[in-house]
């Protein structure tokens, strides 16, 4: 376990870190920022925010287990408001240290609620044989680095070494949840569920009114341009009801067809960022 420490002594890591803060004047700062943006862009990929709690991009876990884990983590957010996300990647897309890289990713995803900052992300990189638990600011007390290290080293690692990823992830998720349970109380809904229910009733009304106006305008326009409406002799400013009907029919048809396509994703519990932030807490292991 001490090998990763030897591989990258603190001096090297410090050097990597300090490079980021190496700026003297605004002009130099800008140049350095651009250079780093380019080099970081070439070397490092921050994956987009996932839409599920459990994300197996490496395909090491069965479909049923994945959806079970996902449901377990969604229910945990309803109960405690803590957002726990698991991301299994085939490979780390960065040259930096795993602790630095996963901090940036977790921060970009905004896991955890905004005020409580209670997010945890378990990153696993299969080909690199590395994993890391990133702990949000608000859970550093409940899940200190030592606990995170114990979970990766003594709970997840043994099954991983044996090649059983599903068992390792199950045990890891369970012990993370057990460790942080009780720190916060949930509202009974996930961030995504709250967002959809909290929407003001005025907006759909306004939206509908806008559509109605649009459909009438559409009808009006057509007849005016054609010059001969059914009932128009002089001005032509009348509404073509056939056109209006056509507009609504079209809308409903396209609406129902698109809903049919994307229906499967809304049935399972989806993850939505709560806006949490990360300060580098957590620990990881290699296997």
């Amino acid at each position, binding site marked *: *376990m001490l090998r990763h420490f030897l591989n990258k002594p603190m001096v090297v890591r410090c050097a990597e870190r300090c490079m980021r803060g190496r700026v*003297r004047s605004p002009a130099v700062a800008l140049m350095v920022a651009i250079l780093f943006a380019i080099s970081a862009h070439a070397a490092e990929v921050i994956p987009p925010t996932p839409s599920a709690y459990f994300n197996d991009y490496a395909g090491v876990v069965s479909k049923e287990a994945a959806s079970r884990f996902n449901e377990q983590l969604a229910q945990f957010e309803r109960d405690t408001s803590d957002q726990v996300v698991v991301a299994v990647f085939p490979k780390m897309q960065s040259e930096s240290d795993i602790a630095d890289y996963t901090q940036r990713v977790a921060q970009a995803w905004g896991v955890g609620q905004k005020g409580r900052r209670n997010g945890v992300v378990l990153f696993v990189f299969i080909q690199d044989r590395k994993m890391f638990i990133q702990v949000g600011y608000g859970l550093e007390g409940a899940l200190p680095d030592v606990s995170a290290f114990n979970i990766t080293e003594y709970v997840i690692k043994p099954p991983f070494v044996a090649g059983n990823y599903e068992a390792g992830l199950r045990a890891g998720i369970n012990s993370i949840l057990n460790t942080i349970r009780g720190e916060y109380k949930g509202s009974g809904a996930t961030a995504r569920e709250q967002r959809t229910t909290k929407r003001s009733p005025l907006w759909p009304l306004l939206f509908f009114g806008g559509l109605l106006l649009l459909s009438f305008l559409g009808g009006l326009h057509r007849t005016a341009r054609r010059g001969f409406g059914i009932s128009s002799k002089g001005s032509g400013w009348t509404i073509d009801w056939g056109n209006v009907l056509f507009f609504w029919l079209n809308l409903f048809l396209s609406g129902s067809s698109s809903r049919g396509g994307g229906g499967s994703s809304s049935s399972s519990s989806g993850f939505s960022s709560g806006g949490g932030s990360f*300060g580098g*807490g*957590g620990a990881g292991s290699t296997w």
Partner: protein
Amino acid sequence: MNKFALGCGVLIAILLFVVVVAAIAIGGNYNRLVRLQQAVDQSWAQVQNVYQRRADLIPNLVNTVSGAANFEKSTLVEVTNARASVGRVQMQLDPNKAPTDAAQLEQFQAAQGQLSNALSRLLVVSERYPELKANQNFLSLQAQLEGTENRISVERGNFNKTVQDYNVAVRSFPTNLIAGMLGFPPKPFFNAQPGAEKPPPVQFNFGTPAPAPAATP
């Protein structure tokens, strides 16, 4: 006469308008600068916080390590001295306000850098003591120390980001015209440690027994 009065009135109105617009502009800029400065001070407090966390871990670490049979005393002395010098430098800094003097920040950084070096040397040396590697207390301290180093890196990055936002605001036109008057000097960043731009030399030390076989998982 009447015309003259009218002209005067218009002139006064124009002047008043200009003054009001200038006041609004200066007020808005002032408020923005205050907000940015507040962000810098807050991130500075966070930096101090994580460095303090590291300093608090050290007595425990030193105690645990010195318990190991005939542990090299020189590395321990080095860590203790570095921590003391960090304390001395910190005494001169206001914990609630980010430093405005580049030399002061440089000094702070140098002291912390020395402590980082001493600590990493201590951890490397401790690899040679199997007794320590089996010690649960030492392992947990090591995990905490590593986590603290990660936090330091994150907070330093955040600090540099907020200072950059602040400095851009202070130095760009037209805010730069009033920033000096209102007392908003540009603030220094954390710089790279001297020598950080070149990779550390790799030394193959065949004289001492390598700990690598024992460290494989």
